[in-house]
């Protein structure tokens, strides 16, 4: 396994005296914890590309807000119904030039429907609405859901975990039992029950996420807090009479930050999946709003004849999920180099 190195007296040379003085000097600038993690993250190609994709998706999705509102989403144009994708400059690629395979031959749907001057990048749906607009709006919904889940993870999850771990004893016991009860019902059943009580839509999805998404975070934070609690610096802070809130904010949270970041990155894909799943089975987002799950469900019905209506939202959803998963893995490796490889 190991290479054999031949050693000869020439391999050794006495060090000049001056250099000994610099032995203690640290050549590289010292890095903070975050800088160090960032440096490691940058080396991970997958994570960097994912981060890039996510940033682009966020910019496009939220930047589109002034252009795509409810009015654009409901405006239908039956003349343009079910047109395939047509992107200017790509006239030579069947499927992206407005042609659709009908009965084995490629037919230019745009010419047939008198829309030769129109370009729908992702085609249109059964009511002639631009699929590109709808997908961007759907992505925005997914990202909002992700944001909301993160928010509850960071507020309820972290606070709950710290309080439970810090207080210990009876309080801890009761709090853990509550988590046990919440997590002994499959999450989606909770979501479904919430959706039934409130009416389907964004509010009920958010409420459902608020109830069910933070339990894993709380558990992990509690376990870590239990360990941190017995550290000397926490003991010192307590002895000096620091208030528990300040100890939590100044000593615990910074030391929990890597767990918090990593766990958040795992909550996000789960939340995005939740929303898409619910909308897909018809109890999530409903008209006039749309989401990737709704688009997938619509596309699925016509998949045999209009495959693009399912493929585009599916690709966007999968890319979004893959990006968050890869970034999550990258962040885990960056913040917790011990577990790496």
């Amino acid at each position, binding site marked *: 396994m190991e290479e054999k190195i031949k050693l000869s007296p020439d391999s050794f040379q006495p060090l000049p005296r001056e250099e000994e003085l610099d032995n203690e000097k640290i050549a590289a600038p010292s890095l903070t914890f975050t800088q160090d993690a960032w440096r490691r993250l940058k080396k991970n190609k997958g994570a960097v590309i994912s981060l890039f994709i996510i940033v682009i998706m966020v910019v496009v999705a939220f930047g589109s807000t002034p252009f795509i509102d409810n009015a654009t989403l409901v405006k239908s144009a039956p003349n343009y119904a079910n047109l395939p994708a047509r992107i200017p400059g790509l006239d030579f690629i069947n499927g992206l030039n407005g042609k659709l395979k009908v009965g084995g031959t490629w037919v230019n749907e745009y010419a047939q429907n008198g829309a030769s001057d129109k370009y729908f990048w992702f085609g249109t749906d059964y009511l002639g609405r631009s699929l590109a607009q709808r997908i961007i709006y759907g992505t925005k919904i997914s990202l909002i859901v992700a944001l909301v889940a993160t928010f509850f993870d960071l507020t309820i999850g972290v606070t709950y975990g710290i309080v439970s771990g810090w207080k210990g004893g009876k309080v801890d016991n009761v709090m853990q039992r509550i988590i046990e*009860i919440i997590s*002994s019902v499959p999450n*989606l059943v909770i979501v479904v029950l919430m959706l039934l009580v409130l009416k389907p839509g964004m509010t009920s999805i958010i409420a459902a996420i608020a109830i069910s998404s933070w339990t894993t975070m709380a558990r992990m934070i509690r376990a870590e807090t239990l360990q941190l609690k017995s550290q000397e610096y926490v003991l010192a802070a307590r002895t000096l009479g620091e208030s528990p809130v300040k100890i939590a904010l100044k000593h615990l949270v910074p030391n929990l930050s890597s767990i918090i970041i990593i766990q958040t990155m795992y909550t996000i894909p789960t939340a995005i*999946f939740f929303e898409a799943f619910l909308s897909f*089975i018809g109890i999530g987002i409903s008209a006039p709003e749309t989401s990737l799950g709704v688009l997938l469900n619509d596309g*699925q019905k016509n998949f*045999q004849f209009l495959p693009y209506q399912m493929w585009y939202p599916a690709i966007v959803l999968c890319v979004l*999920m893959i990006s968050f*998963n890869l970034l999550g893995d990258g962040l885990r490796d960056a913040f917790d180099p011990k*577990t790496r490889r």
Partner: protein
Amino acid sequence: MRKYLLKRILYMVLTLFLVATITFFLMKLMPGTPYSNQEKMTTAQIKIMNEQYGLNKPVWEQYVIYIFDMLHGDLGTSFQYSNQAVSYLISSRIGPSAQLGFQAMVFGLFFGIIIGSVAAINHNTWIDTTATVVSIIGKSVPNFVLAVLLQYYIALKLGWFPIADWGSFSYTVLPTIALGVGPLAETARFIRTGMVDVLNSDYIELARAKGLSKFGIVYHHALRNSLIPLVTLIGPYTVALMTGSMVIENIFSIPGIGEQFVKSILTNDYPTIMGVTMLFSVGLVLIILLTDIVYGIIDPRIRLAGNGD
């Protein structure tokens, strides 16, 4: 051990009782009535229906009756299917769901373990990279998207398997794959990480020094030790399979619990929703308890920690 077990079972019963209570009151808060889908009924008819289903009694009385009946295995009568007992509805549909769930679990664990160990043995080679990519994709592609794609390309275009419905084994293949890919990806990642650790440990070095074959080392020493923590993932997998079944059974029109659950939600069939919720919770709680016990048996280190709790 016995004390620990008793405590766990007590908490389990308490949990299930609370779940039943919460579900019951949530159902009472639900907007709409079970009759809103029907044609216009006169108030007299609605009154008769309410009396028949016991909906005219005060809520607390309905609650007591509900809990009492449930303890006797009676989950009420479905609103949607006239006069069909929910327990009958569930028991007649549990077969396909259980079979599908079991197959998906076995499929996911089996291939996940193989992919994960192959990746770990060939650590940092192209095989490892491929396995990682496969598991990331398997984890990221939602199972309902995969189900639709499998159904179209494998069943409809290639005609290898039936498109939908439930019957012989060939009907179960595609739904099993669609449902099992999530656990497969998770298992592969998990096994890979664990195995890389184990392969670097001292006793593997010793086995190698003893001159054991590569297969012998992996099978007898590395795999067995990396399999232990996998037991803890069975609980989360069960959740994934339960929720997954809701949509997979719909896509492949399998007459199972998940399909029934979605149908009941869309038709406000409270007793069935409550029944299925309870079934899911009981199943999950039992499986978590079972895996905890098994984990303690196969890994004595955990048992010691558990007793201290």
